[in-house]
């Protein structure tokens, strides 16, 4: 009783944000969100702690026939914690990020922003808690709408508005698939709910319905080829919003996929293979596209697609494990996927926040116009470095742990595997290794070009460190990244527990016990190496203190007038790679060659860009075609009333004819 009333009160209390004086808006929103987080986190802790396997909270009195029941099981509890953390850190970061907009924008804009932010958070919570189909679709829609309002924060910029609209449309395409899927379920079982899926799957083919749900949820999650909204929407949104969207909102798609997977009973092998292949494509293509981006936030957006791919690889392996009755593969696959989801929500929001700090300080997101920022904003640089190392899956950070678990799932399943299975797994191993290598390429480039060397432009040279209110929340994220990386059993054990209870995997203690020992070894290695490094650096300091240390210019190969413009740029760093990836990325150059007779070449421009193949084929081409077709039909729209009367007459004639011929 208390729970439901408290939750309803929080929902209602979001409204007064419009009426509250401007100076208090932020504090009010923060207070309300913290209250809500304490409440919902307490629910999920109760479930994870094992007080009750499932907690149900009826929002309205059941007597009124209400179906709005919040159901919290293990999976939901996990997602609630992830959502709450990312949203809270994002909002703490928002204070500093939004400060420069205080003068420019009126109070209403801020109210709308905060209101949408709160509702994005609440709708995500409800998405993971609600099982009833109709209510689910409603909160799913609220999630799309509120994030739309968040994306168009700077709506006066034309490109932002355009991106927002395109985002909204694509979200509704996704919703259409989910709606149809639910209708199919209702048609068979008479109930429109996730709970009815088990009944449906028991008596019907599983794959078609799964594919419907998958299409809908994959658009949200950003799986290639359904990712096209993602690289546009993330850069357009303010950084704290991109952080939350990339960190948790796209994970709602993953949640949906998992929710549908749990009750599935047949077709598991083919489902797993489909998920695995789509994820491999997303992983490889995502990071390949990320490397060629010059916009820092767009690069991060593509890298989000890559990481969704890695999460998907884990889930796909898990499903294959279930299908082949390989406990270890199922457990490690799902656990690796879920852990990577958690990890990604940490380091990706960290990276987006830092990209926001860079934007604030250097007033650009274009990597080519930055450089040397580490000297100017050292704290942001260190945070970005930690995020980069973590996202590249390097030890001793958290990304390594989740990739390690996924690798282990693959390697463990290899002994005694069939031909088909071993080819599939070895292919995945190679792809995951390639993704890892490409991620290192991508993030050495991003970090090196943005933060190291000399500033390439004046505005980068004038950059100053952002204030502490933007740094401090990120330290909490870094702490969690390090805990997951260095003390992995602490985090991995609960994740294993969640997976085992959601899928009823037997033989769990056997696997987890041995596996935690491996993780303990990794922690030990991490500890030893950290100590070794510290010792070596201390000795280095002692060593250098007793010798002459002088400063000089960078070696210019004998050339003494080097300028910052001569540094390697983001484009030149990726040049060799670009050359290699040309057949896949179809990068194009636009320039006019210098003619033979042109003795004094005039000023000309050069542009190179990499198009997204899938966007061109799946979005641009059909919309161009439709627009062309509609333009042709628009000939009918003459604006002369007699023509319209003629159309009406023709239509009636047609109806008459059809009636006479008994066609209708």
């Amino acid at each position, binding site marked *: 009783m208390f729970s439901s009333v408290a939750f309803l009160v929080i929902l209602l209390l979001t409204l007064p944000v419009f009426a509250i004086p401007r100076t208090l808006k932020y504090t009010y929103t923060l207070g309300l969100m913290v209250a809500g987080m304490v409440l919902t986190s307490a629910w999920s802790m109760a479930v994870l702690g094992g007080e009750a396997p499932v907690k149900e909270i009826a929002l309205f009195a059941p007597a009124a026939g209400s179906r709005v029941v919040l159901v919290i099981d293990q999976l939901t509890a996990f997602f609630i914690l992830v959502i709450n953390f990312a949203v809270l850190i994002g909002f703490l970061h928002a204070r500093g990020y939004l400060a420069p907009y205080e003068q420019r924008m009126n109070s209403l804009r801020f109210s709308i922003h905060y209101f949408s932010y709160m509702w994005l958070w609440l709708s995500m919570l409800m998405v993971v808690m609600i099982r009833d189909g109709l209510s689910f679709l409603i909160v799913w829609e609220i999630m799309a709408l509120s994030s739309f309002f968040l994306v168009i924060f700077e709506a006066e910029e034309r490109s932002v508005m355009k991106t927002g609209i395109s985002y909204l449309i694509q979200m509704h395409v996704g919703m259409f698939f989910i709606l149809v899927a639910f209708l199919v379920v209702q048609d068979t079982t008479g109930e429109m709910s996730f709970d009815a899926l088990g009944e449906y799957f028991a008596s019907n083919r599983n794959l078609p319905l799964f594919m419907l749900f998958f299409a809908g949820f994959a658009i949200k999650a950003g799986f290639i080829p359904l990712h096209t909204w993602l690289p546009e929407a993330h850069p357009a949104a303010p950084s704290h919003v991109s952080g939350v969207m990339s960190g948790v909102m796209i994970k709602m798609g993953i949640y949906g996929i998992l929710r549908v997977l749990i009750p599935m009973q047949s077709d598991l092998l083919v489902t797993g293979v489909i998920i695995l292949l789509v994820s491999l494509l997303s992983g490889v293509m995502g990071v390949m596209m990320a490397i060629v981006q010059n916009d820092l936030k767009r690069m991060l957006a593509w890298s989000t697609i890559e990481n969704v791919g890695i999460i998907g690889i884990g889930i796909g392996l898990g499903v294959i494990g279930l299908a082949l009755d390989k406990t270890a593969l199922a457990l490690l696959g799902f656990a690796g996927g879920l852990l990577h989801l958690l990890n990604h929500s940490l380091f990706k929001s960290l990276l987006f926040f830092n990209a926001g700090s860079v934007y604030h300080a250097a007033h650009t997101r274009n990597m080519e116009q930055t450089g040397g920022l580490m000297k100017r904003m050292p704290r942001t640089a260190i945070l970005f470095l930690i995020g980069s190392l973590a996202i590249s899956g390097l030890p001793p950070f958290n990304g390594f742990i989740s990739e390690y678990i996924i690798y282990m799932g693959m390697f463990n399943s290899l002994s005694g595997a069939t031909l088909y299975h071993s080819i599939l797994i070895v292919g995945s191993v190679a792809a995951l*290794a390639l993704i890892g290598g490409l991620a290192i390429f991508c993030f050495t480039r991003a970090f090196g070009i943005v933060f190291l060397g000399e500033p390439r432009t004046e505005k980068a040279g004038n950059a100053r460190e952002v204030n502490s209110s933007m740094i401090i929340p990120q330290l909490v994220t870094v702490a969690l990244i390090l805990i997951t990386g260095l003390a992995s059993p602490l985090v991995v054990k609960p994740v294993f527990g969640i997976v085992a209870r959601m899928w009823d995997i037997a033989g769990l203690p056997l696997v987890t016990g041995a596996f935690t020992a491996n993780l303990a070894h990794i922690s030990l290695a991490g500890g030893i190496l950290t100590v070794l490094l510290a010792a070596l650096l201390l000795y280095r300091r002692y060593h250098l203190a007793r010798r002459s240390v002088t400063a000089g210019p960078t070696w210019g190969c004998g050339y003494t007038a080097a300028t910052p413009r001569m540094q390697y740029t983001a484009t030149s760093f990726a040049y060799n790679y670009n050359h290699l990836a040309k057949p896949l990325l179809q990068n194009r150059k636009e320039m006019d060659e210098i003619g033979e007779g042109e003795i004094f070449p005039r000023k000309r421009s050069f542009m190179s860009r990499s198009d997204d193949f899938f966007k061109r084929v799946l979005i641009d081409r059909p919309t161009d075609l439709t627009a062309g077709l509609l333009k042709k039909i628009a000939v009918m729209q003459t604006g002369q009333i007699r023509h319209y009367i003629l159309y009406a007459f023709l239509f009636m004639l047609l109806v008459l004819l059809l009636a006479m011929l008994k066609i209708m």
Partner: protein
Amino acid sequence: MAGFILIAVAAFFFPGIILRTKSIASGRKGPGIFQPLKDVSVLLRKGSVFSDTTGLIFRIAPSVTLVSAAGAMMLLPFAEQKALLSFEGDFILFAYLLALGKFFTIIAALDTGSSFEGMGASREALFSMLVEPAFFVLMATFAMFTGYTSFSVIFNHFFITGNDYVLIYSIIGAYLLAQIAMVENSRLPVDDPKTHLELTMIHEVMILDYSGFDKALIHIGTWLKFTIYGSLIYNLVVPAGWNLFLKIGLFFAVQALFAVVIGFTESFRARNKMNKNPKFILTLSAIALIGFTVILILTDKLA
């Protein structure tokens, strides 16, 4: 523990043997086998010059790289002697630790703001990214063949699976590891450490600005990486269960042979054209897949 110490000891001789081989092959009198050690001891006594552009990353990178190599050494077994740290999937940590070192080498090069070092960084990042799948496919094949996922256990079970043709895979694996070592250490045919022009360098150009202590660390790190791969090769070709002293002897023999092979390769072979390198490196992944097919046949999955 034995593995750790042996690798470290072998590392002292390794570069000298390469150097000796090269001087003999080219008919020069050449320096002694301990010349590289002497060079490093000189570096250790010298002071340092740092570029004004560089910052923290440039200063910590050599230490991180060396420690990550030491971490990789901890995971390597020697014959039946278990590694310092041995657990399921240790080779994943092994590969990613080496990648961590590489990450820092690359960003340290970018820290100097030099166009030459940026160029080297870009090349190194590209090449080491391409070589990653080869190693993982190789290890996946081992895991599939032996049913284990730890260096120590894999190597101990490799020869006692009772399959007489396993030597085929041994040879493929040894060849592959030797080639991966060449790419990872930026030697011929991917990169020529003795090239005189910055524009044609990969690894050497990345460390142009280092001096003194840090440069010594980089050299030691490179030696260790050679013997790390050398010890992997040793474990792959020498069966377990022989006399310990014989095995220690064989260990050094394999390392020395590896160094001699590198020396001869570098004496008689020219460096690849830069844009041929990706193809060369991708070929390694293809060879790894051939090895995978060999194992499929050996285990009667593909008949």
